[in-house]
């Protein structure tokens, strides 16, 4: 039995994608924990931007909102949402993390509704917020999410945020920024990427304790497989120390 939980593994895996000197647009929760962990370990020069206007804060603790005053704590700038979004659109933001109620094989995300009637939905979710904007503008979109066959859906009820749309070159053809798109899906069971031509979701590595069958059984569509599927690396002792001691001492996220 490993001495860390699944959430800690997902956060550490996500943090490793954020190398020093890149920029990341984050929301609250696990994405913010990953960014903080990266900043406090291997990426001290990570530029963190919050959509509401906080640029380059030295986060003293986990913000509750992407617009609360923690997001401008010792920050470089407190600006407008238009300014941050325009910065994303100009191509200055490398990474972002999103979540959602449904994700399909092309990385399209639903965070709007379940049920066929838009004016009277069975379940209403918040909607895009900044998710569609992030998914449209950031070079590499990542998802951190638990995995099951309902959430990883054959078809999203509603595409709130663009992934690779219908695959192939459909994303670029729609008018969305060239070279931007889904990059990684980090789940409790595995790390997925996207096959370069078809843009279909593809298993890259499997988390300790899970099998290829587990990953496929908990997915509503057929996953492609990388030529060589690796085991996801364990968190290091140092990563866990920083995560538990400095990033999330009250276990708001890692206690979930």
């Amino acid at each position, binding site marked *: 039995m490993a001495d860390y939980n699944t959430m800690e593994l997902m956060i550490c895996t996500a943090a490793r994608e954020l190398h020093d000197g890149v920029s990341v647009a984050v929301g*609250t929760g696990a994405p913010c924990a990953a960014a903080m962990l990266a900043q406090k370990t291997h990426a001290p020069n990570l530029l963190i931007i919050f959509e509401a206007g906080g640029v380059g804060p030295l986060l003293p603790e986990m913000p*509750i909102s992407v617009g609360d005053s923690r997001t401008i704590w010792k920050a470089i700038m407190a600006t407008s949402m238009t300014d941050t979004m325009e910065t994303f659109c100009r191509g200055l933001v490398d990474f972002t993390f999103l979540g959602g109620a449904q994700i399909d094989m092309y990385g399209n995300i639903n965070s709007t509704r379940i049920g066929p009637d838009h004016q009277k939905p069975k379940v209403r979710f918040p*909607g*895009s917020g900044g998710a569609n904007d992030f998914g449209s503008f950031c070079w590499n979109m990542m998802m951190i999410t638990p995995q099951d066959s309902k959430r990883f859906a054959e078809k999203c009820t509603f595409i709130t945020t663009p992934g690779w749309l219908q695959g192939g070159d459909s994303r670029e053809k729609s*008018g969305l920024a060239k070279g931007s798109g889904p990059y990684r899906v980090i789940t409790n069971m595995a790390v997925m990427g996207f096959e370069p031509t078809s843009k279909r979701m593809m298993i890259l590595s499997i988390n300790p304790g899970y099998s290829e069958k587990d990953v496929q059984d908990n997915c509503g569509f057929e996953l492609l497989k990388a030529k060589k599927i690796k085991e996801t690396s364990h968190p290091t002792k140092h990563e866990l120390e920083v995560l538990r001691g400095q990033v999330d001492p009250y276990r708001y996220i890692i206690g979930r």
Partner: protein
Amino acid sequence: MEVFEQGIGKIFTDPDADNARAHFKTKSRAMTNKLMSLKEAIAKFVKDGEYLAIGGFGANRTPIAACHEIVRQKKKNMAFAGHTSTHDFQILAAGKVFNKCDIAYIVGLEARGLSPNARRYMESGEVEVSEWTNYSLSARLKAAAMGISFVPIRNVMGTDTFKFSGAKRIKCPFTGQFYAAMPALWPDVSVIHVHEADVYGNSRIRDITVSDWDLARASKHLIITCERLVSNEEIRRTPYETQIPFFCVDAVCEVPYGAYPGVMAYEYFSDEEHLREWLKVEENPEEFKKFLDRNIFNCKDHMDYINLHGGTEKMMMLRRKEFMLNTDKK
């Protein structure tokens, strides 16, 4: 201009730039004292059936006192900009103030969870909706602030968010690139909470400005609520600090702690305990009705409401929390 694709969502306001100019032509340029009570400002400028927008970001520098007053005065049938809205949306949905909504972000309170009551309202079929994104609505306000009828931006294309919006997909006349055209949004009335204002409405925001810079300029009528009044001399001492000039403003209301129970940067942090209580009580509609009576309808004003939740002592604690002084933990 050729339109390649068009959303089916309704546009609740008129995007015509000349019609907007005709309104702004009549707006006073005189620097007059606009100080009034919040009650008076809401009664005078927030009208049934009109389009309402709220500044700030959900529970951050949001004019919560004004949201309570709008519900207290039982304003109805409004259209609402559900733009980065969280606790403000929760309050206005509780009062069923709006029945049309431009949606970017609604029913959620970010990391705190989803509002059961706002969800029930949005799932009831009583509210006509159009889908947008945070940036789409910001861009619509920006177009209005620019005095033009639309701006082209580069999101939503290929998604259902586009399909259920009122946007149109167009081609750049210079490069052939596709863009989503966002229609200008001129709200009939908006409320923005600021740190400091003078009696004429010249306002300072010591925080992220979210969309408030454009919102202030796009709004046909604007109510400013402020933590504290300052003199006009103080405004003139550092004019580079003015975010909103007086000629955008119709009413100025002095409302200390006006963003409570939300955050006001460099003033007080959010009252998470009370926000949690609010989310929890919404699970039971009968209990929530009593809760609304106690917290809104039976309160005379915002201070009355704050006093229910610890008054000055609570605000001092939240001030220490905002500055992370941590004196409460020892």
